[in-house]
């Protein structure tokens, strides 16, 4: 059950975070396409959570792809954050 909860909680937390950022975009008028990619990754992670109950290796591969999708957004975001703080 560990992979199920791990994938599920991560999918929900990252999905909610990116959804909150997207809702702010309604006011600014500029939607970052990488946020949509990340949201797709969160959705894939939720699917991986349920798949992990039946086929853990396949779920692991799907979760890895989902994580790569999410890093498309979080990677540049972290880089920008670090650059701004330095």
């Amino acid at each position, binding site marked *: 059950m560990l992979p199920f909860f791990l994938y599920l909680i*991560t999918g929900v937390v*990252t999905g909610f975070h990116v959804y909150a950022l997207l809702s702010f975009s309604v006011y600014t008028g500029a939607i970052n396409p990488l946020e949509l990619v990340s949201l797709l990754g969160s959705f894939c992670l939720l699917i991986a959570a349920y798949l*992990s*109950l039946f086929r853990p290796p396949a779920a*692991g591969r799907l*979760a890895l792809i989902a*994580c790569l999708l999410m890093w498309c957004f979080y990677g540049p975001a972290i880089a920008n954050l670090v650059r701004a703080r330095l």
Partner: protein
Amino acid sequence: MILPYLAIALLILVTAYSAVVSFRRAPEAAATSWILPDGARRSARIFVGIATVVIVIGMVAWLSISARNASRRSLRFLIPEGYSGWVRVEFEISGAPALTSEGGQTVVKIPPTGRLMTSSPEQYGWARDSYYFYSSPGLSSSSAGLRLILDSGPERLIWGKINGEAAGSQGIRKYEEFFVGTEQLYKDQANSVKAPDTDKHPARTTP
């Protein structure tokens, strides 16, 4: 503010975990552990399935109830013919007349001053409001002497609608404001003159 950091921490953890699960080559006789399990038990799958169905049904019910509560009765604003400038409606003013209802809409008849006070409470939620010019003060809202004012499109005359609260000598007052006039007039006055109250705190905006 903890959400982004939590999301990144979990993402790092899941990336590492899923990479290990994806690329590991387990020996055939190796026993499964709780960290790298070989699937879940049947009872666990049934429990997760039932819990998911219950959560989905609960979310659908909650969303439908919230959507029903978010709707409000639409307002019909009656504005004096030829009026141009800011219109302001102040709610919950004791001693002021209450708003009336006609044909499922709440009628808001604006006097020639452009400022209306009412004892009725402000309603929140989504609804399509309508705007009309009236030519004679004695006409009722259902009379034929009303002329529709567009609030969208190239011919629109309604701008900058805003709801908020203003703190004054009589306490906090809820109000609704919008501008009546052409786009050029609206832009001109926005550039030159500030809105009637500068200490307003917008609560919601409806197009």
